[in-house]
């Protein structure tokens, strides 16, 4: 990353230096160092990375085929309990499938959907936000109206409504969540752009005869990227919970594909005799989401000292 410079959240970008070289690199890396100094946030970042590695390398790590059923191992308890064995450390579900392997494969779904939704939403949000904030006029009015209307829907209800219409499936989840998610980066980008367009470096570029597209893309965007990155990591945690909620309700990923949300739902029928079926996948969600939240808070503190208590 060569161009990102943090702007304070209120939009008063401090980096108004006309010297491009001075604007590039250093503040971003200074903030990243500040982030690294925050040990708890750094540790959380490492946990998130571990989950990513787990998702990518699932076939190499998982001890068993996540979909291999074995009715002799139906509801087998975790290894440390009577009747458990270390080959199936977290026990088995009602179809005798290895819970650990399913959790490892389930990370793929959570992380894929989290990343895909955030990427799609952020791309749309940046484009719409830049257009609204820089072009103003009817473009801004139209985009802002749409944003207001989408914000009027409670998130999960909107997603459930869409999923009900489109039917379950991986790509449908991404679409259903991105439909509303883009509003958030869009609002951030619009606000930052409104502030940035009055900045000296933008006026300097205008005076030098740079076109609108060039100014938006080369001058404004690099300077407002930091808050967008921070918001995206915060939102990622939310998207992962939403996906798990949809899957829990049976509106998400369809069986037999392992997804944490649907694994928790599977365990509901066996609460009395097999607590582990629901508990461990839920724990995985909690751990990933918690790590994302802590890490993103660290990022936010590093990039925007105003948020410090």
């Amino acid at each position, binding site marked *: 990353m060569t161009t990102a410079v943090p702007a304070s959240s209120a939009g008063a970008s401090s980096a108004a230096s006309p010297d491009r070289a001075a604007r590039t690199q250093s503040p971003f890396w200074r903030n990243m160092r500040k982030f690294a100094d925050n040990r708890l946030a750094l540790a959380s970042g490492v946990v998130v990375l571990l989950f990513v590695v787990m998702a990518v390398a699932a076939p190499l790590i998982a001890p068993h085929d996540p979909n291999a059923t074995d009715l002799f191992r139906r509801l087998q308890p975790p290894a440390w309990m009577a009747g458990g064995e270390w080959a199936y450390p977290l026990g088995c579900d009602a179809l005798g499938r290895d819970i650990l392997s399913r959790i490892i494969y389930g990370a793929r779904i959570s992380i894929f959907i989290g990343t895909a939704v955030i990427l799609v939403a952020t791309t749309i949000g940046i484009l719409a936000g830049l257009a609204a904030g820089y072009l103003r006029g009817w473009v801004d009015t139209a985009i802002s*109206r*749409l944003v*207001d*209307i*989408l914000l*009027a*829907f*409670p*998130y*999960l*209800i*909107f997603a*459930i*409504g*869409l*999923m*009900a*219409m*489109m*039917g379950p499936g991986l790509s449908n989840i991404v679409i259903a969540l991105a439909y509303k998610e883009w509003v958030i980066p869009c609002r951030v980008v619009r606000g930052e752009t409104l502030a940035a367009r009055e900045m000296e470096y933008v006026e300097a570029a205008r005076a030098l005869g740079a076109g609108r597209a060039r100014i938006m893309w080369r001058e404004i965007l690099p300077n407002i990227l930091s808050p967008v990155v921070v918001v995206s990591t915060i939102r990622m*945690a939310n998207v992962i*919970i939403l996906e*798990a*909620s949809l899957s*829990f*309700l*049976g*509106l998400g990923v369809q069986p037999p594909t392992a997804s944490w*949300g649907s694994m*928790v*739902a599977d*365990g*509901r029928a066996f*609460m*009395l005799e097999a*607590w582990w079926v*629901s*508990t461990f996948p*839920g724990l995985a*969600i*909690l751990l990933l*989401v*918690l790590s*994302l*939240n*802590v890490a993103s808070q660290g990022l936010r503190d590093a990039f925007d000292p105003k948020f410090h*208590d």
Partner: protein
Amino acid sequence: MTLGKFIERLAQLVPVLLGVSLIVFLMMSLTPGDPVEIMLGDQHVTPEQEQALRHDLGLDRPPHERFLVFIGNALQGDFGTSFYHRRPVGEVIAERLPATIELTLVAMILALVTAIPLGVLAAVKKSTIFDKASTVGSLLGVSMPHFWFGILLLMLFAVHLHWLPVAGRIDYEYQVEPITHLLLVDSLLRGNIAAFGNALSHIILPALTLGLAMGAILMRVTRTSMLEVMRADYVRFAEAKGLARHRILFRHALKNALIPTVTVAALETGTLLGGNMIVETIFGWPGLGRLVVESIFQRNYPLVQAAVLFYAVTYVMLNFLADILYTILNPRVKL
């Protein structure tokens, strides 16, 4: 705030509500599958009968006309017929609504009465063990998936310890003649303490599950804004006046610190409304949320459509109310 300003603000809601209705309408129109076929199911009908039904439902008209009809009907409370119940959708929703309202209110109250004092305490005891514990607690609360937390509570308190009931709103042996249709209120009004206790024992776990995330967020917001307010000049001036500590804390600081809390509380009701679907599903709560989830699997689209519209309109109105409350709390803002 003057009445004129109030009406002006109310009028600003109209385009938003229209947009919301349009999106809900589009959601349903773009649904794959023919509603008439779904409605008829396995019944054998002649093509003429099918055509008549299509005409009755207005499905043979162009989309923009259908949207106008949809809005017109919605304004009259007519959302069509529930395929599954074979009754008007509005009626079915109205039947299930009180249970959802009761659950949401209790969750909200639970969140507010725990989050605000804890947030204030964390701010006052900043950097102590209590403050750090509350930070960890609120982070956990925010990161916890609703549905999992609910199941953990259910497993522990209902299934294993048998302290609280597993599902439902009240046990069958209790009869409460409805007044407000909120069981907790009605049982008290009727003086039926046993029924009240039973209803309370049913609502604790779902309300706790539903309110957890909101409580965690509100606590965080209260703490942050309280810390900010306590650095304000007017708090210093209040100290220089020699006022008692509780007066400075609650009258000078908290009144200002609550302004952001109220705003966030209104925004978070959106999460609460969405959370209803999950919590009601887990705890077998006979409310609107569970009805919607069931209807999705029954492909009962008119009901889903009406419910999504209802939730969105409710959310818009709640935010509007929060705006009004905000101006009451904050005399500087003139609407």
